[in-house]
Every structure is written in structure tokens, then in C-alpha cells.
């Protein structure tokens, strides 16, 4: 069983986000990247499937600041192969283009199962899995929180709104968008990550050309505050009287 987990590094929201001078995207100079949390769950689920039934797990990441750390941490968790996609994408790579590139790699070296985080906040169309499945013409199930494998199919648990769950049988190969791994993310002691940095091999794959963006962002801006909030001052009676007045003006009383 070959499992491939393409992951994304996304802007870390701990840092303040700065919009570039053109007003079309984030200024990469101020960005710090972190592994998309749902991709961490996809890695955890892949390692769990490997532990249960044996599998060869590959994690693929773009060569963005922080990719090496994310990949070596994955190795310390039990991932077998680490692939870093290198090329000129300093200005970022939109999800359609990224999915196209990864689909090309997967056509050359097919996987039985592709797991990705079900969504990510780094771009429009953050759900890489659905795009990948589209390019590869493979079945796709998103919002998955449980996977059990048999020879040529997977039984997946999908979450629906309102607390509904469904069990869906998917023929393999397939792409799954992981909402949550079946167990909490495991903690990897830092000494183990350091060990992986010394022993694990990171395969660098150069991308010959980066396709142009299919979407163009017209304007990116921070949410603008309106002037609609009003703080009512005074004692309880004054505030209540004013509220009644406002409700009357609005026609709800």
C-alpha cells in the first residue's frame, strides 16, 4: 500500500499579516509559515494506517521556509519518504497550479491512497484534495475522520453538518480530505526530530516550470470597520429607555 500525503505550509496567524504594496496579496517578507493543521492530521492518519496494516508513506511539501522542519518531524513520526518540491515560486503558488504539479508527479509514481488536509487557509480554493482528485480523475471524499483499508477499497467515515456521520466505501486509488485523524496528534520529542534531521533523506525534486495562476486577485484588504456599533452609557434605566427608543425607531416594537 503506497500512501502519499501532499502538505502545505500556510501563513502562521500568530504574526501580523501585512498586505503587499500592490494590494494583491500578503507581503511574503513578513510571513512565517507553519504546516497546515489539517495536513498534520493527514500525516497522523497515514502513520496510523501504516502502523495498523503496513504501508509506505511519502510526504510531499513545497520548498518554503519551514518545509525541512515539517518534513523531518513527519519522518520522526514514522513517514518513510520525504519529498521537497523546489523551484521558483517565491511569489507563492496558487492551489490549482500546485494540484496540477502534484498530479503530474502522482501520474509518474501512482499512489494507492492520497491523504490531504481537507482545507487550508493559504489561498482561494484551499482544498487541495478535491483539485488533485479532479486532475487525476480519482474518487474524492472530504471531511473524513476515519479510514480503514482493505485490498482495493477504503471504508471512510465522513462528517456532515449537524452531527451526522456516514460510512462510505471508496474504491482505490482515491483521494481523501482529512478533517481529523483518528487519534490526537502525537507528540514527537525534540531529540527524535534532531535525530531525523541527521538520518532521514530529503529528496529534492526540481519543478521545471511553474504554471501561471488561473485566478487573479483584484484587491486584498483588511476588513474595514463600519460605524454601526454604538455603546450605550448611563445607568440601567437610562440604557433600557434608550434601547426601547432604538427598537421603536427600527420598527421592531
Amino acid at each position, binding site marked *: 500500500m503506497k500512501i502519499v500525503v501532499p502538505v502545505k505550509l500556510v501563513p502562521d496567524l500568530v504574526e501580523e499579516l501585512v498586505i503587499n504594496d500592490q494590494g494583491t496579496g500578503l507581503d511574503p517578507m513578513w510571513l512565517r509559515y507553519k504546516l497546515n493543521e489539517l495536513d498534520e492530521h493527514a500525516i497522523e492518519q497515514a502513520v496510523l494506517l501504516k502502523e495498523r496494516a503496513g504501508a509506505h508513506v511519502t510526504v510531499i511539501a513545497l520548498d518554503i521556509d519551514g518545509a525541512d522542519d515539517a518534513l523531518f518531524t513527519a519522518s520522526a513520526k514514522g513517514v518513510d519518504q520525504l519529498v521537497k518540491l523546489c523551484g521558483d515560486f517565491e511569489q507563492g503558488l496558487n492551489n490549482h497550479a500546485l494540484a496540477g504539479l502534484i498530479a503530474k508527479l502522482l501520474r509518474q509514481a501512482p499512489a494507492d491512497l492520497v491523504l490531504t488536509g481537507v482545507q487550508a487557509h493559504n489561498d482561494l480554493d484551499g482544498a487541495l484534495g478535491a483539485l488533485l482528485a479532479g486532475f487525476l480523475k480519482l474518487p474524492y471524499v472530504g471531511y473524513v475522520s476515519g479510514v480503514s483499508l482493505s485490498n482495493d477499497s477504503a471504508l471512510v467515515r465522513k462528517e456532515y453538518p449537524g452531527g451526522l456521520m456516514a460510512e462510505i466505501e471508496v474504491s482505490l486509488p482515491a483521494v481523501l480530505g482529512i478533517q481529523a485523524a483518528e487519534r490526537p496528534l502525537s507528540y514527537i*520529542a525534540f531529540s527524535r526530530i534532531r535525530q531525523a534531521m541527521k538520518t532521514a533523506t530529503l529528496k529534492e525534486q526540481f519543478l521545471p516550470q511553474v504554471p501561471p495562476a488561473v485566478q487573479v486577485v483584484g484587491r486584498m484588504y483588511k476588513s474595514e470597520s463600519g460605524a454601526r456599533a454604538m455603546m450605550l452609557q448611563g445607568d440601567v434605566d437610562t440604557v433600557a429607555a434608550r434601547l426601547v427608543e432604538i427598537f421603536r425607531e427600527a420598527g421592531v416594537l
Partner: protein
Amino acid sequence: MTMAPVTQRPSFNDVFYASLQKLPEGENFLACLQCGTCSGACPFGYLMDFPPSKMIASLRAGFFDRVIKTDLVWMCVSCYACTRACPAKIPLTQGLMTRAKEELLLAGNVPTELQDALENSQRYGNPMGESPRRRAAWSRGVEPPVKIMSQARQPVDVLWFVGDYASFHPRVEQVSQAFARVLNALGVNYGVLGPEENSDGDSQRLAGERGLFEMLAEKNAQAFARYSFGEIITTDPHAFNALKNEYPALGINYPVRHYTQFLADHMAQLKSLLRRSMKARVTYHDPCYLGRANGVFDEPRRLLKAIPGIELVEMSHSQETSLCCGGGGGGMWLDGYTWEKAHVRLSEWRVREAVAAGAEILAIACPYEAPRFEDAAKMVEKASRLIVRDIAELLAESIGE
């Protein structure tokens, strides 16, 4: 027929026991009398499946693997109460408990909330997951301004290692501002590392994350090496412990003092500045890593007594027998876990003692304590009027700066 010798791989139990005996004073593990004093002195010994004495008994009986399968070792707050009480001088906190947590951590047996703090420390250099760029943001508004070494680019007499909570916790930031005002009033030439400072790593180490501790120490060492300073002072007893006792083994050697030691050395000058009288009964809580672990008991009390009007009273547990606030050894990041297991908070126990001593002010000298004791005071009967203040805050108030 020749017989090949049968070699048996040593068990986890034996390897672990042997590793403990190789630690400084580790041979004392062989001298354990099984008197149980450690387990009695431990604030959570009553609920651990394997308190320290039982852990040693398990090692001797060869079933330490069972200990590692339980998770109540995480109740240990690394407060040194067991170590101080042990008649055989066994390195219980530093050796047994910390090593056991390391094994739990390697096995992935880690409560989620602790995991978050450790991952944050790895990624951001502080357990709260705050942006390292904002590490000196607390100092805005302090006049004269706090020198940030990368900007000032000049030698200082004193490098102040501020620490995580003093940099990022809104309540403890007030303590940092107060201490900066005290240093300014004394005319000390000091600076801080700001964004270049990382967590001292000591609590992470005591929570079993030795590798992370070493990484953080290396980052701090790189920052120290960039600048010229006479000595390091710190407002954080955990940083004090790390810099004094742990960093030297990693080749990071700098003279370091806790801020109470530094100020006690400036007593004559300080006294002339302490003009405002504060009529109050004050009791002092000895932080574990200033008092019990490092023997600093007098300086904080001398500073408090120097403030006009203050009457210092002692709680029933004080100095060597001081009670832990519950924040050490990773306890700061295990509040939910601790509550789930014990349904008590050590900080409330301490606040009850402060009330019983008739104190109006509970004076502290560790950044973990203001939030812990202030939260506890909300829960303890008759403690609603108890004021929790760092010694630095009381001094700043008396100086009137």
C-alpha cells in the same frame, strides 16, 4: 559440544536504573531506605500510583515498565520537596522524576495541554505561542526606555533575562514594567534581548523535554555571545536555575543573579529611594526554584523589610518547607489535567496559608505566581481582599516612580 554463552538484552528497567545511578549523586539510589518520606512530602504523593519511593521500589523489583504506563507522574511539579526531605540525599527531582517524564514523553504519553506548550516552545521560543517579535512589547511606555540590545549596540553592565511570562502574560508584564522602573530609579545601565531572547527552557526540561531545553539554551547562548555585558540578572527563578545550574554543563557560562540578590546588593541606595510608606502585613512566598532549589531565602525578606511600614509575617510553610504554587515542572501547562486528577489546586492551599497568617499582601518573586495566586484568591474563603504583589511591584510603589 561447546556451549555458546547466552546473552540477554538488558531490560528497560535495568537500563533506566543504571542511567539514574550514573547521574551526579546517583549512587544514592542504592541507599534508599524505603522510608517513604519523599512520598509524604510530595504535595500530590497521596494520589500518585507510584510516588517517588514506590518508583524506586519498582525499579528494584524490575517492573518499572508498569510505572511508565501510568500517567500520574505528570502530577509532579518538580518542587524539590521530596529531594529536600530525603535522608539518603537521592536526586529525586532532578534524577528520578525528570528522567521518568523523559521516558513518558518519548513514549508519547503526554497530556495534550502540555504538548501544546512544548510545541509552542519549539516553534516560537515561548510556551504561550506568542510571536517572538513581540517579546519586548511590554516595555513600551517605560521611561527612560528599556534598551533592546540589538538596537542599542553598546555594552551594558547588566543583561536582564526577562523570561516568558514576564514578557507575554498581561499580569506579569506589569511586574516587568515595575522592575524596569526600579532599575531606572537606581540608574542601572541595563538591557534586554527582546526578540532574540528565547524561553530559558527549564520548565520544559523538568517536564521531560531535554532536547528542547538544549535547543532553547543554544539559541540563548548565541544571543548572549553577540553582546557585551557584565552579568545576567533575571526576574524568573526558573531562568535563574537554568542559567546557574544547567547552562554551564552545555558550555554556557555567565555570572547570573536573581533580581532580589541584585537589589539586596544595592540596599543602601535602594533604601534612600524607598520613601512612600506602605502600612501592611505582608507574607512572602518562597518560590521553589529560588528558595528550596537554590537557597535564596534572605534577600527577598531583606528587601521587603526595607519598605517603610511593612510588617513581615511568615506562613506556616516557609523557606525550606515552602509550598509549591503548582506551576513548576510543567504544572503551568497542566492545570486542566491536574484539576481532572486531583480536584485541588496547590495555589489555593498556599493562599489559605497566607490568609491564616493574617497577611493583607502576599509577596512573590516568580512570574508564575501572580496569575496563579490571584486566581486562587478568587476561590478561597476570606481571600477576596488578599493582594498579590511581586516584590518588584512593592518596591516600585514605595519609590513612587
